[in-house]
């Protein structure tokens, strides 16, 4: 291949990865839309300004933490408590970064800083699934980029629309249960991951621990503790001899 032909081949590979990342993120967008709308409405009805609400979506960019923060503002919590809670809620992202990192070690800071900023639950699951797939593409970070930029634009546009809904109708979307859309999306993300017994054990242990600890540990600390219990349970189950149990889940593969 000549140098020019090689270059145009690479460009199309990059574009393919970028577009594939966007395409695979579309279902997650459907779940994020109602969540972003109610965030916008919820945030301004809890007394956060329009600029502050947009600032949360564009500068912090962390759905569940933004939601919890606006709830805490509504309850009159101190800024320190809000930041601490955000830290605990988002501690899971350190695990996401660690999981994806060895696929990205060849990248410069120019890539790593924005990709780090854009790392959400949805993009993590989409990208981790793509990275697990066999086949060495040197442009997998373009897939990450495609997924992340679509989530980011959607999140900010929908927050803005949500603000305007909130101004007209108040907080009615929350009362209708629109916030449940995020949980339904997460359920759809979880089910295909449960491919064998250790993965299932991990989810069951994390879920039951989260329920047990929910009202015991303050400031959302239960979330990260339950996640670690789930990881430990999966690891232990993985170290035990396997058997053909749970064919029901096996078919999900």
């Amino acid at each position, binding site marked *: 291949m000549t140098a020019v032909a090689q270059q145009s081949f690479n460009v199309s590979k990059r574009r393919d990865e970028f577009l594939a990342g966007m395409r695979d993120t579309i*279902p*997650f967008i*459907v*779940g994020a839309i*109602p969540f972003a709308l109610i965030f916008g409405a919820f945030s301004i009805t809890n007394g956060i300004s329009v600029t*502050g609400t947009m*600032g949360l979506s564009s*500068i*912090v960019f962390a759905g569940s*933490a933004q939601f919890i923060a606006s709830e805490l*503002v509504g309850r009159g919590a101190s*800024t320190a408590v*809000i*930041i601490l809670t*955000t*830290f605990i809620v*988002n501690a*899971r992202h*350190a*695990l*996401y*970064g*660690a*999981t994806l*990192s*060895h696929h*990205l*070690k060849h990248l410069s800071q120019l890539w*790593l800083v924005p990709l*780090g900023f854009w*790392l959400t639950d949805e993009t993590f*699951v989409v990208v981790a699934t793509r990275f697990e797939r066999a086949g060495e593409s040197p442009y997998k970070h373009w897939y990450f980029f495609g997924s992340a930029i679509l989530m980011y634009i959607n999140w900010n546009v929908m927050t803005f629309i949500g603000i305007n809904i909130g101004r007209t109708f108040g907080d009615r979307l929350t009362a209708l*249960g629109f916030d449940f859309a995020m*949980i*339904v*999306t997460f*359920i*759809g*993300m*979880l*089910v295909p*991951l449960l491919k064998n017994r*250790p993965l*299932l054990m*991990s*989810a069951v242990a*994390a879920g039951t621990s*989260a*329920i047990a600890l929910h*009202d015991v540990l303050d400031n959302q600390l*239960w*979330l990260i503790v*339950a*996640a670690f219990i*789930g*990881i*430990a349970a*999966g*690891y232990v189950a*993985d170290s035990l001899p396997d058997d053909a149990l749970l064919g029901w889940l096996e078919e999900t593969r």
Partner: protein
Amino acid sequence: MNEVVMIGGMMLVTFGMRYPTLALVGKLNLPPQVLRALKFVPPAVLAAIIAPAVFLPQEDAGLQLALSNAHLLGGLAAVLMMRYTKNLLLTIVFGMAAFWLAQWLISLA
């Protein structure tokens, strides 16, 4: 002013969780045990977020396993839909429809 501090602080702690491991862990030579444990991050974290939202839908009301829990019914509908169609879009639409239907039926009862 308070909002600026709040948003700045939230941004710092969030980025401070996302970026360092993403940028650095791949450059370390992690023991294989750690890499094996990281496989369990997605199911563990998702389950830890989902379970309280489905089983403890109301604040301070405790575990709700009854049919009057619309979140539980919607969640079950989503699990079944994803299990049998493997289509995330359908799962979200069907799960929310089931949740709202359950909410409406419960409000009639």
